[in-house]
Each structure stands twice: as structure tokens, then as C-alpha cells.
């Protein structure tokens, strides 16, 4: 199989990776860059555990061919906190108990981030729709929805103080 060299920026860091045509972005993140925070729950685009943000939009990285990620800017769960300072969504997930096994959490948090970046004051329905592609078998989604609502309030609060 022919390999190709792609360049991508992940969490602000530039990488060059030699990829095979059938590799996905998820393969590159987990196996080549050792960013294992992005999870594989189905590999068929159905569970959202592999959600990352590509140029501002959420993507199921198991469905995106690695070659398509050439030249793109990618945010994974590892890139969300600033050093020890958690992102308000991460803080809210801890505070509201919005996780159990935690396997869906990275994808959930990133879907929430993409939502709040675009719509800082979402309704409950907006939130449910935004995370409808992220399956969670543990939490029943309730505390996740509450955490996203709390994060939206906190983000709005800090924005108005600025």
C-alpha cells in the first residue's frame, strides 16, 4: 500500500505523519501520536466516543480518512485544558458528576465545546441535539446535560466580567 506524508496541527503542535490510505484520523491520533484520550467505541461512526474538533467542527475521527486530515487543525481532549487550568466544561463535568466509566467523556466534552463555541446560551433541546451523536451507557445523560448548562452559565459569567 502506498503511504503518504501528511501534516496536521494537533492541540497546537505541528506533526508530520506517514499514513496508509485506509488509516483514519482516529488511527493516527491513537496509534501514531499516542493521544489515547480519543476513544474507539464502534469504529463505524455511531457512538461519538472518537469525537474531535477539526477546524472548529466536531468530527467522528473514526470516519475521517487520515489523508483528509492533511493541513487541518485538530483539537483533542488532551488539548482542552491550559496546563493545570481546566476548561469550564471539564470543571462542570467534575462538579455535576457527569461521568461514570468516563469512556464517552472525551467525546462528550468536545461536542459540548463545539456547541458552546457556536451557541453560548443553548436550550436544553439544543444541548440534547448537540450530544445526540454521543452515546453514553452509564449516566442516562441527565448530569451531562446539567454540566453543559452549568458550563454555559460559567462561560457567560466570565465573558461578561471580562
Amino acid at each position, binding site marked *: 500500500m502506498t503511504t503518504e506524508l501528511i501534516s496536521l496541527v494537533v492541540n497546537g503542535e505541528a506533526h508530520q505523519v506517514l499514513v496508509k490510505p485506509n488509516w483514519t484520523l482516529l488511527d493516527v491520533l*491513537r496509534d501514531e501520536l*499516542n*493521544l*489515547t*484520550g*480519543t*476513544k*474507539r*467505541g*464502534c*469504529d*463505524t461512526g*455511531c*457512538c461519538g*466516543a472518537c469525537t474531535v474538533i477539526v477546524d472548529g467542527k466536531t468530527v467522528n475521527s473514526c470516519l475521517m480518512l487520515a489523508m483528509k486530515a492533511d493541513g487541518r487543525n485538530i483539537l*483533542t*481532549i*488532551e488539548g*482542552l*485544558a491550559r496546563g493545570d487550568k*481546566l476548561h469550564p466544561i*471539564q470543571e462542570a*463535568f*467534575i*462538579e455535576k*458528576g457527569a*461521568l*461514570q*466509566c*468516563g*469512556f*464517552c*467523556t*472525551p467525546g462528550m*466534552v468536545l461536542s459540548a465545546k463545539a456547541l458552546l463555541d457556536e451557541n453560548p446560551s443553548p436550550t436544553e433541546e439544543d*444541548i*440534547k*441535539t448537540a*450530544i*445526540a*451523536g*454521543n*452515546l*453514553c*451507557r*452509564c*449516566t*442516562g*445523560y*441527565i*448530569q*451531562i*446535560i446539567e454540566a453543559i448548562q452549568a458550563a454555559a452559565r460559567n462561560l457567560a459569567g466570565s465573558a461578561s466580567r471580562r
Partner: protein
Amino acid sequence: MGGLSVVGKGVARVDALEKVTGQAKYVMDLKLPNMLHCKVKRSSLAHARLLKVDTSRAERLPGVKAVATAADTPNIRFGFYVKDETMFAYDKVRFIGEPVAAVAAIDEETAEEAIELIKVEYEELPAVYDPLEALSETAPLVHEDIASYQAGFSAVKYRNVCSHTTLKKGDVEEGFRQSDFIFEDTFKTQVVHQCSLETHPVLAEIDGSGKASLWGVSSMMFPARELLSQALGIPMTKIRIQTVHTGGSFGGKVGYIPLGICLLLARKARRPVRLVLTRQEEFIGTNPRHPSIITLKTGVTSDGRLVSREARIVMDSGACAVDGPAVMTNTATSAPGPYNIPHVKVDARCVYTNKQPFGAFRGYGHPQAYFAVESQMDIIADKLGIDPVEFRLKNCFEKDGSELPTGHRIYHCGLKETLVRASAYISSARPASAENKRWRVGRGVACMLMESGLSGSGAFVKVNDDGTFTVITGTVDVGQGCSTVVCQIAAEELGVDLADISLIAGDTDTGPYDFGSCASRVTRAAGHAVRLAAADVKKQLFELACDRLEANIEDLELRDKKVSVTGSPFKSISVAELATMSIFERSGPILGRGAFLDKGGVPLSERVSGYAKSEGPSLQPATVIAEVTVDTETGRVRVLRCVESQDVGRCINPATMEGQIHGGVVQGIGYALTEETLFENGRILNPSFVDYKMATALDTPQIVPLIVEELDPTGPYGAKGAGEAPIVPVAPAIANAIYNAVGVRIKELPITGEKIFMAMKKSQGGKE
């Protein structure tokens, strides 16, 4: 909650930080140098004699480092209840998906290619898929040698029946003669999968001394180690099972076969081997919930007293027994429900078929039983014109002293309280939605009682020389939050903050025996053992301190890493000082030990035959009231609100407890309405999340958890088990709410829109 400072608080989970930052490591995230990748060759036929497994071409493929088949194992049959399983099929294949061989190769692609090169020669045999057909005299036998298989407990087995249980109390025929009305209904429940978001992963490495280190996701590490040791003839000193973070289990992650396969390959290849099941393999190759057929014949008086119940249960076990005998015993002993019925007779059979073996899934036989029991309660209440809640209250067990059908007395049972609390909430709440001609709204109630806890757990507590503590347990946090709960218990007992406790768990080498994360037992058994170990440490600290403080032991207290004399806070000595003193001047380091046996699961009752067990000493009672709306034009159901009231004894952590209720309700909605693994001639038609419909955030209703705390003195701080109960009453409550909304009674899960629509059509458009 007088005097408690950590227990009873909804503190954040101890693992939350690593999980929100993506740093938490799961087995599929682990890599070792020179690691190989494993793929499993699975049977393509449901029932066939295995003539030849030719692996020669696979072995010659460049990049393949080892191939394993039954020939690499001693072929000892093993199993929890009936010893009918093997690592790889060797005489016959019994279901589509059964492992026949496995390959370890330098990458997944090569391993996959090698699997295709393995040639299996079969002689196809007639198969049996329907459990009722499997019971007939002429049905093909799934296990011809069943009579010679060893069984744990007193499993009665013959032909395709791997376990036959009966329960008898009073005289049902006499009971039916005393009844004014007799109801007979048959209910069916479907196969549903645990669908943990993480599939089964295993990483195996054999060290220079021949010892196997296995990183797996076994929620029952110690029993898994025992089975591996039996199946492969390896002493337990040569097997170490460790878990890291686990992406959900719900009973499904027992995982001894994947562990065994990787162990064999790692030994053969002399390199580490990792296996991660694909989602499709997870659906076809693991052990989802047993489907069941339950017939209840019930006699009542016209004023609403239950008099007599006869239950006939057929449970489809699939190709092996796995947990079947125990699951079915739960279904059998729950068939009378939590009600005082003088005459009871239950006949339950667990039957082999050529489908994947079914196993443990949250609720363990109770979701099946309670769908039948609580649906029929409403059928009866409706006919007698009695309010469903009143009807239940009239017949249900009292808090103390009621007799379970097995003959055991129960105490500290908050079941009535959960019924009262849930119905009081709902009667003062506004309806969740307004009704109109098209969308009808209905409410339904269901309650349930199941035991919790069994078997033993141990714990150690170490005092560190800075006055902090390390807890060592054999327990496994599969995501439910037991790490947090056992740390809370230790912190409470030792008078420190959560931050002063470090936890070592999930390792069969370092931890004391623990039966596992199952049977809602961890808070009770592991929690109790931790509490006892902490109390042991406390006692030793007090013994050291009493000389120095010139005080009696009874007058000492431990708080904020200091031992002090009650009432004289200035008379104190730090734990750090005591720890150092002990190490250098007295008896060496301070070590605390705790061990606890939860006496569930012990054969006790002469009323039960076939697989006798006691109900555990502790109970999980719960009530759900569901509100739904049904589209009369399509039959589509939306669940609007679920009130779940549960007696958890002392609630150690309200935040994680509410999480258990939320999760259980939403899983229960899936069980009630959408989830089903579909089979055609033993082949699963929908082994993916595309076609297997789990609830998403859009399906989540308003959920109101109401926590009842009827303390149980046999649990730590009065705690009861609580993890499984939340799912159990959900499906019958929804079925009853649908009946309340549109007047159709669906007795087969899942209650799809299509079934409702057809039933409404049959009854000319439902309720007018």
C-alpha cells in the same frame, strides 16, 4: 446524618479529573514494546462437528507470530455454574461466533488476513434456536455429554436443560379454589446487550519466569483467575490480572475467554499480545441478557388479596450455561414478586440453544421476572377496579418480618416507603404533558425487590509515615464509582479528608480476594471490609497513643491526622508521629486488615430445589412511576418523566447514587421500547449501533430520583446495595403507562410502536 463528615456527601469522584482530561488509561490505550495484535477466528455455523482446523497457511503468512487453537489447551471444561465451556471449540461448534482459533501478528491487518487463511472443515448438524423446541424429546442436543458435566451447587440438568429449578410453598391448587378470579398471562422478554461503550480489551504479557500478567476488564477478577487456572491448568501464582479504567460493564465484562486466548498466544509467541474486540464481535461473541418466556397464573380474591400463583419459566441459555442457572433462579424466586402470597409454585428451566451464551446483565434475572409480575399486577388491578398503588400496598411485604417465598424473613425493607414516596410525588406533580386527541398521556407504576450482596471481600489499610493512609482492596471500579465510595468509607472511619486516602485496587496480586463488581455487592462487601480494616488501624493507633497521652483507649478520637483525648483537644499526638514511633520503636509498620462475608448465595432453603440459594441478607427495593405519551396514529411512545424511588440504606454518595438511577432508568427505557438483538437461524442480524437502538440524549425524559434511607445494620454505615435496582421496574412501569394511555396491553418486549399500532388497530383505535 448526624456526625458523618464524608459519608453521605455527594463528593466528586476520585477519578473525575483524569477522565475529563483524557488522561485516564483504559486497556486499549496500553502498549508494550514488541506488542502483537490478536484476532479471533469464529465459527460461521450455529451447530456443526468440527472436523479440522487447518492453520498452516495462516502460520506461514509473514508477520504472524503465533496461532492458537483448542490443541494448545488442555480442553478442560470450565464454567461458573455448569462446567460446559472451553477456550476454543474442539469437538463441535455450538453457536455462530464461537472462537475456533486465534492469531497474534505484528499488526491488526496481518492478523485479520491470517484469520481468513484458517480453513475450518465442518460437518453441519441440525440446530435448535427456539428454547421451547429445544425442550422437545426430538430436539438436537447442544451438549450430548451434559450428564457428565460437573456442576456447581445442585444444578439439575438433562437433555437441553442446563438447570431446572422449582419453588414450592403451600398448595397452589387449593389457593386457586379459594380465589374469586384467576388470571393467566404469558410474557416474553428479548435479548438485550450490555453495550458498554468500551468493548472487551485484553493485554497479556508473560515474564521471564513464565508468569502471565493480564490487563483486562474483568469485573470479577478473582473468579476469572480461578476459571483461567482451571481451564489452562496453570497455578494462580502464575496468573496476575490487573484492571485499569474500565469503560462500563453492567455484568457483561467477565471476560475470562478473551483473557485466556491472549494468555495462550502471548505464551506461544513469547511477546505481549493485545486483543480489542470490535463492536460487531462484542455483539456476537459476548454474553447479553437472557430472553425469557414467563407464564403467570394468579388467583385473587375480589377485594384484591393475592392468594395463589403458579409460574412457569423458560429461559434461553444459549449454547452454554455461563450465569444462566443463577440468573434463572433469581427469576424463579422473584416470580411471586414482593407480595405475600400464601400459595406459590414455580417451575423454571434454563435451556440450551444454538445461540450465543447469555449472561449477566444488570438486574440478573429480575428485569425479566418483574416485567411479567408488575404487568400482571396492573392487569389484575384494572379488572378488579382497584388503584394500582393501593393494590400493591395491600399485598406487599412489610418493613420487618415478612417472609420471602424462599422462607427467609426480611428486615429493614423500605419497599412500601418507596411506593408511598413515588406516588405522593406524582400525585402532587403536574402532568408531564397535556393530552390531545392524537397524543394520549398515561401513567404507570411498578415496584420491585431484589437482594444484594454475596460472597467475600478483603481489604488492607496502611498508615503512611506522613499520617495519610493507603487502602488496598481487591475490588474493581467498572465505572459505577465504587473507588470513590470505598475511599469515602475509609476517610470517614479514619477522620480525614478524601485527599488523605490513596487507593490501590484492581490487581489480583496486590489485593486481597474480592468476589467482584457484581450483585450490587461492592459498597456492602468491599465497603465493609475497608471499614473494618480502617477500624483495625484506628485501634492500633489508639493503643500506641494511650500511653503517650495517659488516657484510656475509650476516650481517644482520631481526626485530622491526630489522635486526641475527647474533650481535651490540646492532649494529642499526630498520626505521623505514631506511625514513625511504631516503625522504629514498637512493633513495626501499622497494618490494618478487614474481611467481610456477605451471606447471600448460600444454599439454605428446602423450598427451592435445583439451584438453591438464599436471598441475600440485604435488599434493594425500588418503585418507578413512568409517564408516557403515545401517538395514536403511529403507536410511537415518548417517555416524558420517570420518578424512581429507591431504598438504598445509608446513601454513601448521593451524586453517584443519582447517577445510578439516571443510568438505570435510561437503560430501562431501551429495554422497554427499542433495544433487541435480532436472530435469524442463530445469526445476529443487527450487530451494530446502527441497527441496535440504544437511547440517546434525545430519548432521555425528566428523571426524578427519590432516595429512601431505611438503614440496614449489616452494611457499612447502614448502606445497602443499590446499583442494579434502578433498571428493574422501568419496563413494566412503561408497559403499564402505555396501557393507561391507549388501553392496549403489550406482553412482549420491546414494546415497539408497531406492536402498539397493531394492538390499537385490533381493539378499534384504543381507549375512547
